C-alpha cells in the first residue's frame, strides 16, 4: 500500500516538473518567439497559477467524491505553485532586469499590476514556510487562519493577470471562471454548514462560531451529517 502510494507520488512529481522541462527545451532551441522574456513571464506565471488552482481544487474534489486520499497531495501542489511562482519572480529579477535594482524598484513602484503579484507571492512564501507538518503542529489554530490567506492570494493572482493586459481581456477568462467556481464552492459550503449548525444547536453564539470554524476545516468537512457535526463541536468546546 505504502509502496503504491510512493509510486503515485513520484509519478505526480515527474508530471509537475514537465512544464519546467518544456520551458528549458524551448529556451535551448530558441522557441519562445520574438519576445522570449515576455513569453517566459507568461509561461511560468501561468503554471504557478495553475498549480495554485489545483491546490484549491483538492478540497472540493474531496468533499464531492468523499475520497480522503488527496489531502497529502494538496501540500505538494501548493509547493509546486510556490516553485513556479519563484521561477516567475527569478526571471523578472534576473533575466528581464539583470538585477538592476534601481530600475526594478521604479518598475515595482510604478506598476500596480506588480503589487498584486507581489501580494500573492508573499502569501505563498508564508504558506510554504509554514507548510511542514511540524510547523502545522506548532502553529495549531493559527495555521488554519494563515493558510486561509490562499484565497486572498488567488484573487491577487487573477488581478495581477488582468491588470497587465492591454488587449484581449478574454484570455484569462478561463482562469477567472475556474477560481470563481472554486471560491463559490467554499462559500456555498460555508452557508450550507451554517444552516445545519443553526438547526442542530441553537445554543450560545460562541459555540456556533466555533462550529463554523471547524466545518471550514476541509479535512473534517467530509461527513456533514448532524451527529458527526455535533460531536465535533462538543470536542471543540470541551478543552476551554
Amino acid at each position, binding site marked *: 500500500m505504502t509502496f503504491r502510494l510512493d509510486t503515485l507520488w513520484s509519478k505526480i512529481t515527474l508530471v509537475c516538473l514537465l512544464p519546467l522541462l518544456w520551458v528549458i527545451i524551448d*529556451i535551448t532551441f530558441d522557441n519562445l*518567439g*520574438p*519576445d*522570449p*522574456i*515576455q513569453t517566459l513571464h507568461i509561461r511560468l506565471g501561468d503554471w504557478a497559477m495553475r498549480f495554485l488552482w489545483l491546490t484549491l481544487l483538492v478540497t472540493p474534489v474531496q468533499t464531492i467524491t468523499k475520497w480522503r486520499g488527496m489531502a497529502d497531495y494538496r501540500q505538494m501542489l501548493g509547493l509546486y505553485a510556490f516553485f513556479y511562482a519563484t521561477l516567475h519572480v527569478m526571471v523578472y529579477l534576473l*533575466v*528581464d*532586469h*539583470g538585477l*538592476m535594482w*534601481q*530600475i526594478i524598484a*521604479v*518598475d515595482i*513602484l*510604478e*506598476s*500596480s*499590476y*506588480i503589487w498584486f503579484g507581489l501580494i500573492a507571492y508573499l502569501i505563498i512564501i508564508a504558506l510554504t514556510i509554514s507548510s511542514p507538518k511540524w510547523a502545522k503542529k506548532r502553529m495549531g489554530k493559527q495555521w488554519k487562519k494563515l493558510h486561509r490567506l490562499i484565497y486572498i492570494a488567488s484573487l491577487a493572482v487573477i488581478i495581477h493577470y488582468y*491588470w*497587465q493586459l*492591454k*488587449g*484581449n*481581456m478574454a*484570455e484569462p477568462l478561463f482562469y477567472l471562471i475556474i477560481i470563481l467556481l472554486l471560491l463559490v464552492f467554499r462559500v456555498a459550503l460555508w452557508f450550507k454548514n451554517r444552516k445545519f449548525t443553526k438547526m442542530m444547536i441553537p445554543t450560545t453564539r460562541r459555540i456556533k462560531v466555533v462550529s463554523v470554524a471547524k466545518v471550514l476545516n476541509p479535512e473534517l468537512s467530509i461527513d456533514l451529517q448532524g451527529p458527526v457535526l455535533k460531536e465535533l463541536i462538543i470536542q471543540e468546546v470541551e478543552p476551554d
Partner: protein
Amino acid sequence: MIIKTTKAILASEITDPLLFKHRRQIIKGMIGTLLTGAGVKSVLANDNKPTWGDLPKADVLSQSLTVTPAEIVKNHTNYYEFTFNKTDSTSLAQNLPTDPWSVEISGEVEKPGVYHLEDLLSQQSIQEYIYRFRCVEAWSMVVPWVGFPLASLLKMVKPLSSAQFVKFTAIYDPNVMPNQKVNAMLEWPYVEGLRIDEAMHPLTILAVGMYGESMPKQNGAPLRLVVPWKYGFKSIKAIVKIELMKRAPITTWNKFSPNDYGFYSNVNPAVPHPRWSQNSERQLGGRFFMPRRQTELFNGYGNEVASLYSDMDLRHFF
C-alpha cells in the same frame, strides 16, 4: 548614473546584431540578384514585392541604432483588427487586399480628393529612416522604415491656415478583419491623430516599406504612419483617409480608455501608464540575457521634438 550603466551595456551588445544584419544583407543581396537581376525595383511597378536597392538615408538624425532582426519585427505586431495575438497577425493580415489602394485626403485643404497610392508616391522621394519604435507595452525595437515625410505629402495638398490637426483613418474591412466583424474591444475603424506641427515635423513619416522591401501586410501595408517619439499605437497602419481638421480628432485608444492613453502619447519615462511603469523597456532581438534599457524622454528624439511641447505640462497632456 543609470544612463551610463545602460549605455555601457548597450555598447557591448552591438557586435552580435551587427553580424546578424550583415548576414541578412548578404542573403538579401543574393535573393535580389537572383530574382530581379538588377536588384532595384520601383514601388510604382505593378509588382507585389517591390524592393529598393541602396536607399538614401534620411539625414534627420545623427544617432546610430542597432537594427532589430527583420524576422522579429515581422512577427511581433499589434494588429487588433485581425487578432490580439502578436504572432497570428502575420498570417491573418495576408488576407487584406492592398493593391490597388487609394487614400482620401479631405478637410481643411486646398486640394482635397481621392488619390491613388501610386500617384502620391510618384511625387515623393523615398528614403530610409532608422527609428526606435517604442510600444506602450514597454518593449522596443529598431526598424529601418522606407518612406517619406508626411509634411511633403501635406504640402502637396496645401493645408489651409485653419488646419490645426490631422486625422488618420485606417481601413475598415470586416470581411477580412475578424475583430472588426465581431466589433471586438475597440471602435473600428482605427483612428489616430496629430497636431499639425507634429504632422509637419521632419521626423514624422509615412512608411511604405521596411528593411529595403515593401511593407509586409502585418506591419501596416501599404501605407502607415511612423511617429518615432510617440508610443507605437499612434503610428496607425493601412491608412485610407487623411483629414485636416480644425479641432482635435477623437482617437481610438484615447476613446477606449482616456485615463490610460492620452492624445499625445509621447514616450515619457516619467509618466507611467496607470497600471505599469514606462521607466524602462525590453529591447527585442538582443541576446537572451540582455537587460532592459532605460526609456528616454521622447524616445530619444528630444533634441528634435522637445520644442514642440516647450510650454506644455507633459504630465497633464500625456
